[in-house]
């Protein structure tokens, strides 16, 4: 596994952007506290919701997890859960079990390190281990000053996304593969929070302004800053997955979190455009137009409006939008194609 970590360090998918890596590492270290020294955190470009912690302290956090979080408390909840598996040696037990069946090297070479960790770290924990990790994870969060109620929010958020998804995850998907249903886990976690309610540490975290209501959050939460500043990278990964149902659910959450509305509207337009159902072109165009009403406009909104107007025969409108796009984005990599449209087109 150490060799695999050396290889992982060279992977082009490991995020090196300090804005993201420092943010995730800081939260992980706060939650892991005494175990912080054991930890090496790698953020991986992967659109799926997942995090995993190997028995040797190597932690992988997907970008698809970060973009789904509504608060730092929620990220702390996921990391606290993983820490609990680590301290209770659940991961080690899994590794030993895997070793009995096949070598770790085989597992790693077959699935890649992230895949192997996902298998070791999450998929195969049993019901008792998951329950232990849920409860202990909440204690770790409280000790670190985070609001433990965020853990049940995560499960409800995942269930909400799954309900609205156009393509449902297979039963192997991690949050569905563990025995209790997400809503049941959320209720169990709510009960844990009730038991923790009188704890001085929770009172301290509430006083510190960290307690959240629903998915609403304070402006001070650094998660918003991270997601906002890297919004295009994080959301383009989600857009590529082509599931407008998931995307629209995510965008609703981002709007509630206070992500810049012009960005949310641009991606909402993209979601309607790729869904391409009855009335979706009109919905997409309305969203793009709204996005262009703001001072900080995503230039892509002009380009997409240009394409849609062109497709529907309004060459004059299309030309105006394409010109606006090039004015905002003179070095666009697809400038040649846009100029081609301006000169007559397809």
């Amino acid at each position: 596994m150490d060799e695999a970590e050396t290889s992982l360090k060279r992977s082009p998918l490991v995020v090196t952007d300090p804005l993201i890596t420092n943010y995730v590492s800081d939260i992980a270290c706060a939650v892991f506290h005494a175990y912080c020294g054991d930890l090496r955190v790698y953020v991986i470009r992967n659109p799926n919701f997942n995090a995993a912690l190997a028995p040797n302290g190597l932690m992988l956090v997907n970008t698809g997890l970060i973009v789904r979080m509504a608060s730092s408390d929620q990220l702390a909840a996921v990391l606290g859960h993983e820490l609990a598996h680590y301290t209770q040696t659940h991961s080690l037990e899994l590794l030993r079990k895997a070793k009995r069946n096949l070598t770790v090297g085989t597992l790693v070479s077959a699935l890649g390190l992230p895949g192997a960790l996902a298998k070791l770290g999450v998929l195969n924990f049993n019901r008792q281990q998951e329950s232990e990790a849920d409860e202990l994870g909440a204690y770790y969060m409280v000790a670190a000053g985070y609001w433990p109620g965020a853990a049940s929010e995560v499960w409800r958020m995942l269930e909400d996304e799954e309900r609205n998804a156009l393509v449902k995850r297979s039963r192997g998907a991690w949050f569905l593969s563990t025995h209790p249903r997400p809503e049941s886990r959320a209720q169990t976690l709510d009960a844990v929070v009730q038991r923790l309610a009188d704890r001085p540490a929770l009172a301290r975290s509430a006083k510190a302004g960290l307690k959240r209501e629903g998915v609403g959050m304070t402006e001070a939460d650094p998660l918003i800053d991270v997601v906002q500043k890297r919004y295009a990278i994080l959301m383009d990964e989600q857009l590529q997955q082509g599931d407008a149902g998931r995307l629209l659910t995510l965008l609703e959450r981002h709007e509630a979190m206070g992500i810049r509305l012009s960005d949310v509207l641009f991606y909402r337009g993209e979601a309607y455009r790729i869904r391409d159902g009855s009335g979706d072109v009109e919905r997409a165009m309305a969203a793009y137009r709204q996005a262009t009403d703001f001072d900080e406009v995503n230039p892509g909104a002009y380009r997409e409006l240009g394409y849609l107007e062109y497709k529907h025969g309004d060459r004059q409108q299309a030309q105006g939008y394409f010109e606006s796009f090039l004015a905002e984005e003179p070095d666009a990599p697809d400038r040649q194609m846009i100029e081609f449209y301006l000169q007559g087109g397809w």
Partner: protein
Amino acid sequence: MRRLVLTFAWLLLQGCMSNQFSIIQPGHHAFGSFTVQAADAGWNRAPQQLTPHLYGGSQLWTRDGPLLDSLTLLPGIPDGGYLFVSPSKSNIYPVYRAGMLPNEIAELLESSLVRLNGPEVVVSSCGLRPHRVAGMQGLLVDLQLSGNDEPSRRGRAMAFVQDGELYALIYLAAWPHYAEKHLEASIAVMNSVESGG
């Protein structure tokens, strides 16, 4: 990408790869209702056992082996069709629609490669631009695929539409060596498209 690598590796272990590649002779070769030209005898056609993701009329050409370089020829995809064969009963690929604009076709290529390679490979496309081939208007777009523990792949896709059917050629190779080594030969095949297959 990982799915493809594992498929190739598994088939290699099964001994399927040793004698079923066929040399593509220099000259014209059918590409739906068009032809493409192989300028030399450096191209090899992968056997169908190695390309379960390709429909019958599609082909995978390679010079140094499909793990290092590949030129995928996708001829005549009809309205409502897909670029690749889904591994399960439920379709995982985005659908091609006649009337798609170049930006939509580029997105279709990118999204199809995303599904083909799975979530552990990041696919990006860049530099969409117009391209004339066989007297028709087509498009070119540059591609990049990055996985965790495998070499990055780079390449280029060329596509055009004839009578509502999509034709595409997708070149991808391990970067930098193989991607650069075979780019010229791949571009030559892309530019050799002629009607009358």
